[in-house]
């Protein structure tokens, strides 16, 4: 299980991006997606399964993130976007996506990934045009934010694997989950 969380601390101690520890994650993930493509007939189902797995990782990963970083509670979505891009992505994937395309209401933004470590070695075959290869990331983001009382919609708007110029993850704030708000927490 630990290999799914190649934290930056461990990465830095060897070299930066591209060393065996993060490649192990990339390769393991690749094997997982390939297997799911064999197990399920259509790509939609594979996307769904990846998202679900990501969700289950996210609800646990958030604790690891909070325990290791000294990030406090976010008071608006802009702050959340910053923490995700600058702290969380950096910590677990070693990249810093840029935050753009804010909606006027400030409840929607895009994460632009210059490089996506999950797709380092991937070429999408023609018969998998609907596959969202990195759906796991959406699930992770959704699961982790749900644990800190934010219901968020996460999806891939653009993907270099499918011929787009950049990889774009679109995040939309749905609501604050009041029933999960711990008592005595402002």
């Amino acid at each position, binding site marked *: 299980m630990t290999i799914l969380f190649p934290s930056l601390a461990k990465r830095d101690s060897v070299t930066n991006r591209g060393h065996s520890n993060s490649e192990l994650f990339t390769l393991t993930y690749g094997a997982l997606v390939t297997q799911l493509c064999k197990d399920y007939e259509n790509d939609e189902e594979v996307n769904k399964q990846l998202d679900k797995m990501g969700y289950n990782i996210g609800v*646990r990963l958030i604790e690891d993130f*909070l325990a290791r970083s000294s990030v406090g*509670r976010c008071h608006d979505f802009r702050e959340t976007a910053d923490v995700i891009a600058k702290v969380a992505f950096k910590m677990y994937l070693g990249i810093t996506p840029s935050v753009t395309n804010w909606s006027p209401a400030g409840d929607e933004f895009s994460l632009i990934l210059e490089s996506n470590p999950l797709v380092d070695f991937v070429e999408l075959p023609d018969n998998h045009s609907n596959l969202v290869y990195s759906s796991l990331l959406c699930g992770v983001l959704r699961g982790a934010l749900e644990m*800190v009382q934010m219901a968020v919609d996460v999806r891939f708007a653009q993907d270099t694997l499918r011929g787009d110029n950049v990889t774009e993850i679109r995040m939309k704030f749905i609501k604050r989950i009041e029933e999960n708000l711990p008592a005595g927490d402002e």
Partner: protein
Amino acid sequence: MAIFSVYVVNKAGGLIYQYDNYVPRAEVEKTFSFPLDLVLKIYDEKLVVSFGQRDGIRVLSINGVDVNGKYTAEGKEILEYLKDPANYPVSIRFGRPRLTSNEKLMLASMFHSLFAIGSQLSPEVGSSGIEMLETDVFKLHCFQTLTGIKFIVLADPRQSGIDALLRKIYEIYSDFALKNPFYSLEMPIRCELFDQNLKSALEIAEKAGAFGPGS
């Protein structure tokens, strides 16, 4: 300096982990002749000293045999047994009653509500719940994570470095409970590695009193 015990409470107020880090205080064994110079009574299915030198102390064994609630090992009522002069002299061992797992569960959920009441009663806005509760003999330190899990440590009032210890326990929880694929969320933590790491963290905290980052 000492750290007495650790509790982990989930966001619903359920106790998911408890560890006692101390050996119970010396128990006393004494031989009595008839009549008994203590008043014993039954409280909550247990035999306790209600009047005498040390009230509230529980009867643990009679003539070296452990008692079973208010009955002797043979199943006789202890109070009846002690009324009979033929049974004297008798040797009784006393000690402080230990909390049963049920009592611990109850106290943990009670603290969960107290914590919430603490923030509700607060005269200031934006108050947290109870972070520390102090008594003559121990201090209770509570750390609630953003996700609502509470880590509670009971320690000697003079023990320092508890804040760092609480953070360290959070780290151990995220490493050894949550990354264990067979551990299900919100459920009691039964992970050997979690136990081991928690114990060594407590030892270090007791000795040094402080943690460096990432230690």
